[in-house]
């Protein structure tokens, strides 16, 4: 950036150049912008999973476990960030209790987790997926309870019976 010094031309002398070096400032700003853009992208993915998902507020102090994450909006259900039930709203008036696509996704994940932990995937006593796995349900605050119930029932049937709801901590 170049500025002409005031008054030099009036006295008839050659104008002098004043250089302000802004290269370092631009470097710093670029790094800061890159950091903020990356942070924004990661934050949106990991905490909300969908743009139309606004969790309720709670005064609970319990930490959130992100091992298995089911996000519920008014239109769709996502399992670990991927849409598994794209027509969730269609079930609103129906008597559907088990969400088949979510059930299949959870059972696949259950098998992988059991394999990694070295425990049997199927409970020999009941013939159902072995229980004891945690799941966090991140639901939009406007979703109806009857829809949440379907998600809870499906999680429970797939062996994810330690259910927790995600909420925004009060006062944050």
């Amino acid at each position: 950036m170049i500025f002409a010094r005031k008054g030099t031309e009036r006295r008839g002398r050659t104008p002098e150049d004043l250089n302000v070096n802004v290269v370092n400032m631009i470097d710093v700003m670029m790094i800061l912008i890159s950091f903020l853009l990356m942070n924004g992208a990661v934050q949106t993915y990991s905490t909300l999973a969908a743009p139309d998902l606004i969790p309720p507020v709670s005064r609970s102090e319990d930490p959130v476990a992100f091992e298995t994450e089911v996000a519920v909006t008014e239109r769709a259900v996502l399992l670990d960030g991927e849409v598994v039930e794209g027509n969730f709203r269609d079930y609103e008036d129906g008597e559907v209790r088990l969400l088949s696509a979510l059930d299949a996704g959870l059972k696949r994940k259950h098998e992988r987790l059991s394999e990694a932990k070295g425990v049997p995937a199927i409970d020999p006593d009941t013939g159902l997926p072995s229980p004891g796995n945690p799941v966090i349900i991140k639901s939009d605050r406007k979703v109806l309870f009857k829809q949440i119930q379907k998600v809870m029932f499906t999680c429970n049937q797939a062996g994810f019976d330690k259910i927790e709801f995600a909420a925004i901590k009060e006062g944050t």
Partner: protein
Amino acid sequence: MSAVSGGARRETLSVNVVNLIDILIILLVFLLTNFATSTFEDLTSVPAGMPVWGRDAGSGVAREKLDRVEVRMESQPGFTIVLGFSDREPAVVRVPANGPAGFDYARLSRELLSVKQSWEFRHDVLLEAEKDLSFDVIVKAMDAIRSIDMGVVAGVMPLFPRVALTDIPN
């Protein structure tokens, strides 16, 4: 920025970066605002069980007397606390809806506090909610059941930390 060409005369080449800096500053302000609003929305979790019939309710002095604590949640009339006893008829406490504003969560907590003071060993409550209620009010009711806000000095006091969720049977 300047450069010397030809050796005889010094020429000045200038690159106008003012517009670039303007855009970068606007972008920076926007991203910082976004960062401030998103990062500090700290997430927490609310444990929610499903009812398991016939499970042991716990142990304690008054175990034989109080079998179950149920909270019914309906848009009208509001909350209904049902205390089921093994040796007598259930006791019912009504917490009417707080006008058009909705449910009276503070009064529900106060009523449950008096239950908790009589039966300290109880930790679980069955919340029976109307199917068409929103998730937001369900979580608020769970908060009111799990703890009571006693103000700045006393803080938050735990009530019934284990809440099982189901719908109201027809």
